[in-house]
């Protein structure tokens, strides 16, 4: 088994560090190695300690989180999950190859998702850890099993237009009907083919070919309109992945492309 992921926290607010510490303490395979309360001490500390993953607040006195990361040599740069209460840093964050970008306050689902992303990237980012023998989840979910009373119904993934979070469960919207799945949206997101489905918001997953309009908003979120007129919000933290996925779909839907049909 691989060694634990060594994590550092950089945030100037004690309560924000407390939240992260508490959340990380519940996880297996995570080792908290350092906490820094400002950008300047983090810059030196991270270079010396070389953690695998760092949670960085962007807005700090002295050096900002982005400056701390940019100041580290590329090879010594840990995987980064950026946190901010304000928006507008997403593009810079992705330029620095951050694993994720979270808006405070962060809910548990979103936090777990970010951590999961880091876990998946971990074997590839660290040369000293052997690459896992089998990469999990290459088989994407084709059908959903839904329990309705005493019955079990199978819903074809191809019929699902969107999935909506419903507390700790999820609701499938397929062909005008809704089905409750006893699984978290975040868990479903990992099992769906990213070429067909994309997470667009903390509470929704959408089938890409259902999107007919995408309208960017001033706050960097976007509003999607699906073929049946349904409106969905796309959060800015998912926008880079969404626009990329939509752009990659383009060759498929060009009429004279050989890959059609």
């Amino acid at each position, binding site marked *: 088994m691989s060694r634990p992921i060594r994590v550092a926290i950089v945030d100037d607010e004690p309560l924000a560090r407390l939240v992260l510490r508490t959340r990380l303490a519940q996880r297996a395979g995570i080792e908290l190695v350092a906490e820094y309360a400002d950008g300047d001490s983090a810059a030196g500390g991270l270079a010396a300690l070389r953690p695998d993953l760092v949670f960085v607040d962007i807005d700090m006195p002295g050096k900002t989180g982005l400056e701390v990361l940019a100041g580290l040599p590329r090879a010594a740069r840990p995987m980064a999950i950026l946190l901010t209460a304000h928006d507008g840093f997403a593009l810079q964050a992705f330029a620095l190859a951050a694993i994720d970008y979270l808006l*405070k306050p962060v809910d548990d689902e979103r936090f777990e998702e970010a951590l999961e992303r880091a876990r998946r990237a971990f074997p590839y980012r660290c040369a000293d850890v052997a690459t896992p023998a089998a990469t999990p989840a290459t088989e994407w979910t084709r059908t959903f099993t839904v329990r309705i009373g005493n019955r079990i119904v199978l819903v074809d993934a191809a019929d699902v237009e969107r999935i909506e979070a419903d507390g*700790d469960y999820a609701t499938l919207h397929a062909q005008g009907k809704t089905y409750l799945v006893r699984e978290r949206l975040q868990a479903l997101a990992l099992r769906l083919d990213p070429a067909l489905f994309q997470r667009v918001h903390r509470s929704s997953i959408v089938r890409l070919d259902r999107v*007919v*309009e995408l309208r960017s908003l001033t*706050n960097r*979120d976007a*509003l999607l309109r699906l073929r049946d*007129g349904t409106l969905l919000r796309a959060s800015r933290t998912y926008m880079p992945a969404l626009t990329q996925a939509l752009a990659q779909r383009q060759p498929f839907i060009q*009429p004279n492309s050989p890959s059609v049909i």
Partner: protein
Amino acid sequence: MKEQASPLVPLLAALPVCACMTILGLPALGNSNATAFRALFFAACMVWIVPLALLQRALWRRDVSWRITAPLLLAASYAMSVVNSLLGQRLEIGLGLATGYHWNELVRGLDGCWLPMIAFCAIHAVAVYYLSLQRAQLRLAQALAHARDTELRALRLQVNPHFLFNSLNAVSALVSAGAGRDANRMLASVADFLRATLAHDGRHEHALAEELALTDAYLDIEKARLGERLQLNMKAGPDLLDAAVPYLVLQPLAENAIRHGIAPLSAPGRLDIRVERAGAGLLIEVVNDGMRPDGATAADGSGSGNGSGIGLANVAERLRHLYGDAQSIEAGWRADGRFQVRLTLPLRRVAGATATTHRADPVTPAARIAA
């Protein structure tokens, strides 16, 4: 009406007077003596106009009533005409037409001089009065627009606070119940909604897409609060996301629908929001389940029932301010027992919006193949 007119005004007022005097003098052109007299009167009149205009302005500035102003100006111009007459007699002597001054003829034939000066005073007065009236009207219009703007701002701000306190209460309740996960989820939704409202730049209108996103962020919070009891359906027709709508026009309606319609129900309730094109207008429809109060008629939108509230009146007021007669809003209970608010606005695009919308038209080959 004490507006200071520009010094150009007396000059312009003198123009028609000069023109008249010149035209009246044309037949005398062949006669050198007559031309000389006309030229003298003309020049003298032009010179007198300066003190006359200054006198007139001084009287206005002192707010002297027209009962005093009129006789005073008449007297002054009469005196000036007499001096003119004297100058004329001096010219006669100079030309050898007379040998001395005829004092008894001094006040004869003053009309050629006095009347143009009276005409000048009248034109000057009318011109200045007209200009100041115009300026006053402009200022009044600006004041009205400003007042309307302030009122709109106030109406807009009225929408927010109670929702904030409701959400804080809900979070507090979740924390007390030990539902930390739900509390966190709710807080993230509240932060989303706040970010959406803070991104607003203070204009009275924004794109429909912004309003729908903001309403959706708000509905996320209500969903967290009500859970199963709130069922949502939000749809829009094609190509409308850039339409200009008043800021916070839909959110208060959704809030109303939940607070007065769905929240008091014990069974789950549905909220349908639909945006459609309606001819040259934009139709926004909010329909919710609710308990119809006894005695409410099908068209009762007066706000007396439990289906409406301050939010509806607020939205109606703002629509009236922004669009006058080009809008309509109606609210009432439908035959199927659901409460409905329908509003229509003029359909316009927000400025500079086209660049931000990427749209795959459902009738393009792309979408046909994908289907």
